């Protein structure tokens, strides 16, 4: 089989029919990684040894015809901000370059329990702050479709890993679009579940009220399988949802979208949206109509202020979440200090990259006395408004159709000196986090240059089932999921 094209579903089937062993699969992926990842730079840490031990364990299970868990023997790549017991978890930051967590994130525990095999930790923007993975302290990940382009971010390593055929499943996190935008840039399926559906315990926090863990896969069906594994209430996370999540998303996956109502926010298709993206999305809208979905244009008046509210809230939370990295207990410590104040100050100055420092400064500023009411309080009020605007929309629509990014994958280095331009690339994704909604990004076409284009479907709270069903229907209709990039070993 072509490992680079393999879906979770196909690999599971192969194990069942004993077409290949788990060890063969794991080895095949590592072969590709060794061949191409010097160029792609998707991984920060590889775990070949433990992966092979795990593979052997699953192979034995198969030989003994034991009952298999849903992700038994499925290789998974994990974004390097999800804590892995005994394995470095760096957040792509000099600050945590040598940090080895003494515990597993709940998501890791769930993946392990369902038999998945962790093959490595993926590159990202430092502390998930960025939209291109260029803010990594260690390496720049390249877009498998065009090595001059960024893979998107912040979960760029996970997105690139799935597209490059390094793993059929990757775990990412999405605070303002960090799964959906790289999925769109790399041409695969990125799912950001409802806030609270997946435990955040062990996810190194960027913005606690917005962060949510999700998946990268080649197909919507695989995304459903992944979600099924990682979702669920966690007593270790007080914000984790109780009594939500569907046990088996496969049951209604093929039900089709006939009679479903889709809204197109007209504000999303005005100035600033790349024409090629607009064309591709409109083509998808046509397909949806043809399949029996009802599509309607409507007004969703939130975009501009949403971006401001998002950057205020996320930076405020980040300024507190990242305060613990002070060089005292773990992480980077400066050699240049004379007392406790210079120890903390210099460790933070030297350990953090410039984007992280920018967010900490913004967050500190908006929370300062005298500014709190003008910024943070206003942003929180706007957040309430965003939720109610979405709420009204979902009274009428089953899902909202939106672009993922206003721009195509851009050149490496193109926007690094212009943070505002970089921030604007999240304009269609951030409000989903502000409202805590689930959303999915799936490939819907290619630009003339051959760069992937993604389409975003946004659902109401805890309506992942509906979302997956719609995305699956569109994906099957478009027939793009078998299209993969051709990798070159050398630039």
């Amino acid at each position: 089989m072509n490992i680079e094209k393999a879906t979770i579903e196909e690999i599971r089937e192969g194990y069942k029919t004993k077409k290949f062993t788990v060890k063969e699969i794991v080895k095949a992926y590592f072969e590709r990684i060794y061949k191409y990842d010097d160029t792609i730079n998707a991984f920060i840490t590889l775990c070949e040894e433990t992966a092979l031990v795990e593979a052997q364990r699953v192979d034995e299970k198969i030989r003994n015809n034991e009952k298999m868990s849903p992700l038994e023997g499925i290789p998974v790549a994990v974004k390097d901000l999800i804590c892995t017991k005994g394995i470095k978890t760096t957040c792509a930051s000099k600050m945590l370059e040598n940090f080895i967590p003494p515990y597993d994130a709940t998501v890791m525990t769930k993946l392990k329990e369902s038999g998945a095999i962790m093959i490595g930790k993926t590159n990202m923007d430092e502390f998930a702050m960025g939209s291109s993975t260029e803010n990594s302290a260690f390496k720049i990940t390249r877009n498998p479709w065009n090595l001059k382009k960024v893979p998107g971010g912040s979960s760029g390593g996970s997105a690139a890993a799935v597209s490059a055929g390094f793993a059929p499943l990757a775990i990412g996190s999405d605070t303002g679009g960090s799964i959906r935008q790289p999925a769109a840039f790399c041409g695969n399926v990125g799912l950001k579940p409802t806030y609270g559906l997946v435990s955040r315990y062990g996810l190194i926090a960027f913005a606690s009220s917005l962060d949510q863990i999700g998946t990268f896969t080649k197909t919507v069906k695989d995304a459903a399988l992944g979600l099924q594994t990682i979702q669920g209430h966690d007593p270790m996370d007080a914000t984790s949802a109780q009594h939500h999540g569907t046990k088996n998303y496969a049951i209604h996956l093929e039900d089709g979208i006939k009679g479903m109502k889709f809204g197109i926010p007209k504000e999303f298709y005005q100035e600033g949206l790349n024409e090629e993206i607009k064309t591709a999305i409109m083509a998808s809208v046509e397909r949806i109509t043809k399949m029996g979905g009802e599509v309607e244009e409507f007004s969703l008046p939130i975009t501009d202020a949403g971006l401001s509210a998002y950057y205020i809230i996320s930076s405020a939370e980040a300024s507190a979440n990242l305060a613990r990295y002070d060089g005292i207990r773990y992480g980077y410590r400066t050699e240049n200090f004379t007392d406790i104040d210079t120890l903390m100050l210099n460790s933070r100055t030297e350990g953090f990259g410039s984007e992280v420092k920018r967010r900490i400064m913004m967050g500190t500023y908006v929370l300062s006395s005298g500014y709190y009411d003008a910024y943070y309080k206003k942003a929180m009020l706007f957040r309430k408004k965003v939720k109610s605007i979405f709420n009204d929309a979902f009274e009428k629509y089953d899902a909202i159709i939106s672009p993922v990014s206003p721009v195509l994958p851009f050149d490496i280095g193109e926007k690094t000196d212009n943070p505002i331009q970089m921030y604007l690339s999240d304009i269609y994704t951030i409000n989903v986090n502000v409202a805590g909604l689930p959303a999915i990004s799936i490939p819907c076409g290619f630009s003339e240059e051959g760069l992937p284009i993604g389409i975003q479907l946004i659902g109401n709270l805890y309506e992942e089932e509906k979302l997956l069903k719609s995305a699956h229907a569109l994906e099957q209709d478009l027939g793009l999921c078998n299209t993969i990039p051709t990798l070159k070993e050398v630039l």
Partner: protein
Amino acid sequence: MAMETVIGLEIHVELNTKTKIFCGCSTEFGAKANTNTCPICTGLPGTLPVLNREAVNLAIIAGKALNCQINTLNKFDRKNYFYPDSPKAYQISQFDLPICEHGYVDINVAGANKRINILRIHMEEDAGKLIHVEGKPVTLIDYNRTGVPLIEIVTEPDMRTPKEAIDFLVALKAILEYSEVSDCKMEQGSLRCDANISMRPFGQEALNTKVEIKNLNSFKEILKALEKEEVRQKELYDFKEAYKIKQETRKWDSAKGRTVPMRSKEDAHDYRYFPEPDLPPVVIKESTLDAIEKKIPEMPEEKKKRFERQYKLNEKEIDVLISKKMIAQYFEEVVSHEVSPKEASNWIVGEVMRILKESDRIEIPGKYLANLIRMIDMGKISRSAAKDVFDTLWLTDKTPEEIVEEKQLIQMSGADELEKVIFEVIEQNPDAVEAYKNGKEQSKGFLMGQIMKATNGQANPKFAMEILLKKLSQMERGERD
């Protein structure tokens, strides 16, 4: 100008939970450094807090016992500041929506009732402890205390003298101990107090510049510190140098007996409070409130009234008996074994309190003390022998009966036995008897001494004296007859 003092207090109290407020670590005091810690309370990346409902319940009890309103919807906030004892560099606390508000404690000022109002009580997590190594440029950190649940009680500036502040603290401490919210051990830091003090001319409504005093480790120190600061401010007003009183935090230096500047208003932190996104708001059900209300035990004031009524003791002794819940409980246990409340109270106020100065537990079962008291009543042992038995009881596990037996303290009170000894003593000491007859009263004492000597001190002195006097008067009469 006639000035009055204005004092307000901020009291931190560690709640009496088994585990910490946001993780499952033990709250035990005195464990080896950094053994009561986990990834959560040391703030490792990715960890999240989960609220310990027991801490909420205790905060509710404290609120109810201090006559507060309970906010059935309250929330946590992050208080941001960098300091190595705070592993997340923010403290999870409550800012604008605390769990309790608008309470009070009544104290007695010059015979009249005075109400000290409580502005608010909020929940928060305690910080770790820095240990500065003497003579070395090294500081060690112990995170055992990090995450121990605290309540902070903030009073209105209602106290007018340092003495009132102490009276309030004594009453507050008793209430918190009684309701088992906290063990309130100042020496272990489970009750800590900061004081705000300012002065203003009598009749002036507005508050003048206040000074906050920290590092107050006992009620005695608080009293001294407030009195010193009162004098300092008073002098500055008297010498028209009030501008020198700055809003600042001063540290009490107990060795030097004065307050010294710690930080000024300009250095004050901007804590950048904002709602804690990791914890949903705390919602308290009415049914929970009702259930907790039913469990709140008798408070000191109620107990005082009941003791007066039920045991007919005087105020002074009742104040000693109710000064600690443990003592009041012990008193009632002793009384339950059918000894007179007055006797029980005498023993506790005298002997038990004497020993409690060096011990924090009462080592003698109430039943034993009751038995001891009964043995005196029945004349089995002497009062002084009983004190000896009491001291031994404290140090051993023996019963009072065993100790009395061992030490051969049973009093000789059988009339026949005693009479025989007394007869012998009279026979052997004719001179003393003669002297007594001639009106030398002291001879009576000498003869008693001889009786005690002959019985190894086991003669019941009361009976012995009665018999002796009877014999002597019989002899007198005999001679006359």
